């Protein structure tokens, strides 16, 4: 029983990694551009389509094809900030939100035009164990049972830890990180201090676009069906994770992402208990409702610091 429970928790490892990457991207943009990027999911989908197309037409393996995909994500992010936001006449935060929403429409319309409308798109994980003639899962004996872990989720965990770890190190120790943190606390003051805030926001958008595509490729590699809006749920969860963990720190949203996905898995596990089998339908309702209650009690988020408002 306990082994099954831990196995179930481990099965959400991949979703946790993906949500963490998306949540970090959302937070980075929220802190440097004070807006929520609704196009996060669709830019990610666009990059994932590029990787999938290279895989289908040229037979390029995904671990190689992911780089052109990430490049597309980075360029899309840069495009939003450098071409759209900076050319506009005094664009305010709500205006920026609407612009990212318009971008969602353009990408949603554009993807079928570029890539056609296939029924299903073939895809593979980074390490295609089946093609190599090996088992895709690892079995580890544990507490009188067996733990089942997919190799793909372990690889993704490694990549996520590496990417997020180096980003946090950059934030903490590099000059760029200092500039980001200064811009996040006040853009106009940062500008007065001689920080090139334009470069900071542009790089943030580029990183966010790239992280989104990486997350999408991981998600698709884990068996998710690629579609125009297949990242929307992840994106919504990433926003909510930001609120739950608190946007005031960079690590808060990551904690939120882990908590949301683990809570969802736990509620899902309850369904295997006799008498609770109907609970699967209510899974997300319960998780979201719990989250709303937490936020009402602690509006600044689990790890957030209270906002000081000045007149």
């Amino acid at each position, binding site marked *: 029983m306990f082994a099954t429970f831990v196995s179930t928790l481990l099965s959400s490892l991949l979703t946790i990694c993906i949500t963490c990457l998306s949540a970090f991207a959302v937070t980075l943009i*929220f802190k440097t551009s*004070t*807006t*929520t990027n*609704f196009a996060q999911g669709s830019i990610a989908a666009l990059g994932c389509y590029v990787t999938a197309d290279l895989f289908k037409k040229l037979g390029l393996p995904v671990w190689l094809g992911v780089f052109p995909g990430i490049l597309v994500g980075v360029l899309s992010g840069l495009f939003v900030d450098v071409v*759209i936001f900076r*050319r*506009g*006449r*005094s*664009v*305010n*935060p*709500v*205006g920026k*939100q*609407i*612009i990212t*929403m*318009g*971008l*969602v*429409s*353009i*990408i*949603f*319309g*554009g993807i*079928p*035009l570029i890539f056609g409308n296939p029924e299903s798109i073939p895809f593979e994980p980074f390490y295609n164990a089946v093609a190599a003639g090996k088992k895709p899962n690892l079995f580890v004996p544990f507490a009188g049972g067996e733990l089942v872990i997919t190799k793909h989720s372990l690889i993704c965990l490694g990549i996520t830890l590496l990417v997020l770890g180096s980003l946090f190190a950059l934030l903490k120790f590099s000059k760029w990180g200092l500039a980001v943190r200064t811009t996040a606390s006040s853009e106009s003051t940062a500008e007065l201090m001689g920080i090139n805030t334009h470069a900071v926001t542009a790089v943030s958008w580029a990183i966010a676009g790239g992280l989104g595509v990486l997350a999408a490729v991981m998600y698709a590699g884990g068996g998710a069906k690629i579609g125009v809006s297949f990242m*929307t749920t992840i994106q*919504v969860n990433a*926003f*909510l994770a*930001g*609120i739950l963990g608190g*946007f005031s720190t960079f690590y808060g949203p990551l904690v939120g992402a882990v908590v949301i996905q683990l809570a969802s898995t736990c509620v899902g596990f309850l369904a295997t208990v006799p008498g609770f089998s109907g609970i699967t*339908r*209510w*899974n*997300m*309702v319960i998780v*979201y*409702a719990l*989250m*709303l209650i937490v*936020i*009402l009690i602690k*509006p600044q988020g689990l790890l957030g610091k209270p906002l000081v*408002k000045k*007149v």
Partner: protein
Amino acid sequence: MNQKQNPISNLLKKPGAQILLFVALAAGVQLLSGGGILPNSLVYALGNTLIYAIVAIGFCLLLGYAGLASLGTAGFIGVGAYIAYYMMQELGLPFILALAATIAVSLLLGIIVGFISLRIEGIYLAIMTLGLSETIRNLLMALKPTIKIDLNNLKLFGTPVSDTGSYYLILGIFAVLMLLVANLIQSPTGRAMLAMKNSTSAAQAMGISLMKYRLLSFVIATVFAALGGLLYMVHVRTMTTATSTLLTLTTSLNILGGVVIGGAKSLWGSTFGIFIIYGIQSMFLSKIQFFQKNPAFITMITGLLIILVVMFFPGGFAQIVWELKMKWQGRKLKEKEAAHES
């Protein structure tokens, strides 16, 4: 300026007259279609657009006057739609009772969201309402994935509601709600909301109760959205929550987008914005063969239009109209001066 003004343009400044003119035009479209001059599908699409316009004018008050951004609109539309289904289809009750139930439930929901808005603000509030909307959508989906109302279960004052009937019903409700909001924003309530939007602290110092006006604006926006859902079930009569995007973030964003590109402080601007987002696509572009073959282009054009308007006219279409008007008046003034000098 003591110059005599045209009595017609004076009359058109009154919201009542504007609404009357709009209703006459919209009813005229229906009559033309009844006479076979305009296609039926056009009127049907116009009815659909008007439903979203109802949702939008409530949202306009919330965003443009109270300054609160919400992304929960889709969830509230869903609440209205499901109440309509349970009241009219399952219980077989008349429309009026469904209307009363929708208003009552959404009133309660609006008060709850209003209280939430006292705790958190800004983009946090937007994401929080998004979470609430997702909760509602998942809840509704768990209740019943597909809802459908049979035509003979739709009764208004004992008579079944036809397609024409539902169109006039939507138009009537639109006119009443528009008049309500148009008067509200010119009253002390509207001014209190504007004060609150510009600075909560200053407004409080002037003795404006944040709680009262935030609750009021959320109640109005929520009730209007739920009414939109109710009317959707009267007009379209079927909804598949599991697969359609109607109750997802897309709808909330479309409403927000329509209001912003129309001009968040202008009711007619918002209506026009909704017309751009929902109406043009379903009423005109879908009739052109090129767009029928490539529906993706419609989505792209809408997106591009939204981006361009927000980039260059942050005040939306209302600002474009205003700037044109100012230019026109400036030119007239110059002409007058020139005539004076000579």
